[in-house]
């Protein structure tokens, strides 16, 4: 894969990172390490901790997620994140947009022999 392709892929990854994190937090709260580990488990997303924490900070500033620190007697304290109402709404709008987007692109790509 050429450098042009690499940068294209990384642009796409950057674009979907937000929706990936919001989706991960749907219906449950998670702490930073857990979020990073879950995302790292998806090799195509190729997301690093160095990208996730700034993103979490941005999403929190935007009011899409909220956080709370929890002490633990057996390990380091954990900062848990959860979706806010605004975050839930944003995610459903993004999901809708994503489906529409990917359906159209699939249509376009459908005729190409793999």
């Amino acid at each position: 894969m050429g450098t042009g392709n690499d940068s294209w892929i990384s642009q796409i990854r950057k674009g979907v990172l937000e929706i990936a994190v919001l989706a991960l937090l749907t219906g449950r709260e998670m702490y930073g390490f857990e979020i990073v580990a879950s995302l790292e488990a998806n090799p195509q997303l190729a997301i690093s901790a160095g990208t996730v924490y700034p993103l979490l900070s941005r999403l929190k500033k935007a009011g899409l997620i909220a956080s709370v620190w929890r002490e633990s007697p057996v390990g380091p304290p954990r900062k848990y994140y959860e979706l806010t109402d605004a975050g839930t709404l944003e995610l459903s709008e993004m999901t809708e947009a994503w489906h529409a987007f990917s359906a159209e692109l699939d249509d376009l790509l459908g005729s190409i022999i793999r």
Partner: protein
Amino acid sequence: MTHARDTIEDYLARLDAALREFHERERAELLAEVRAHLEESALRAVGSDAGVDAAVRSLGDPRELARRLRDADEEGPEQPAPERVKRVLGMPYNFKPLSAEAVASRVWNPADPRILMPRVFGIGWTLNFGAIAVRLGLVRPDDEEAVPFASVPDKALAAGLAAVTVANGAVVAAAALVRASSVPVHWGLAGPDRFAPPSTAAAYLLAPVIVLNAAALLRQALRASRTERALSVAGLAFLVVMLDGLYMDGLAWAVTGHELVYPGVLVLAALVLAFGVLVGYSRLGVRAEWRRARVK
């Protein structure tokens, strides 16, 4: 585990240094979170340093991480997109202070095919003279540079301003010389239906033009951007025809009993003149652009 401990402390010390610009509380919070992350990774890989090393790699260079955290702070999505058009009752509006370039993007934007553009300031729409010129075949949509009128020769701008200033001056002189007890300021279908003393009419019709003319002269003197000067000449040409014209019409009616032209015609004439000025400047700018390109 001491290597892991050292790695964590070393990373945090470097991150701490890189986070200097942050507020104390925010910095402490970010450090605590990264510390928790690293300690968690140490905990998961008991007896091995690989976990912490991988976590440090995944976090990346502390300075880079600090930069990203700072960027996240600054360009959060909470800022509304600048291009989003706000609407009230379906009508676009905008009351933000504007730049000449912003004005030009609406009133002279040949690249945009829309003739009615959301208004640059206030409520409603504005005419995109650029789109009209393209439809009339006077300019091509992609002739101009990104900043319209940026290459118009200074002489042409000065000449345009001189012309409207002279016209405005002539009207002001006429207003000072011709005596009338009252002049019409409003026309209905059957002719003038509202009258005012000449001084009132002058205050409403002539004063704004004089003020804006002075502002345009000041812009010229201060060498404001060519875009700004070109727009102010076109705007002034419009007002001179429209408001000065209306005043002269009233004056003519008061003296002779007939207006010079029907006021509706003035609106049209003012629009056509402003349009002509914009088209002329655009073509002069493009020509200067070509000449420069050929010389290179």
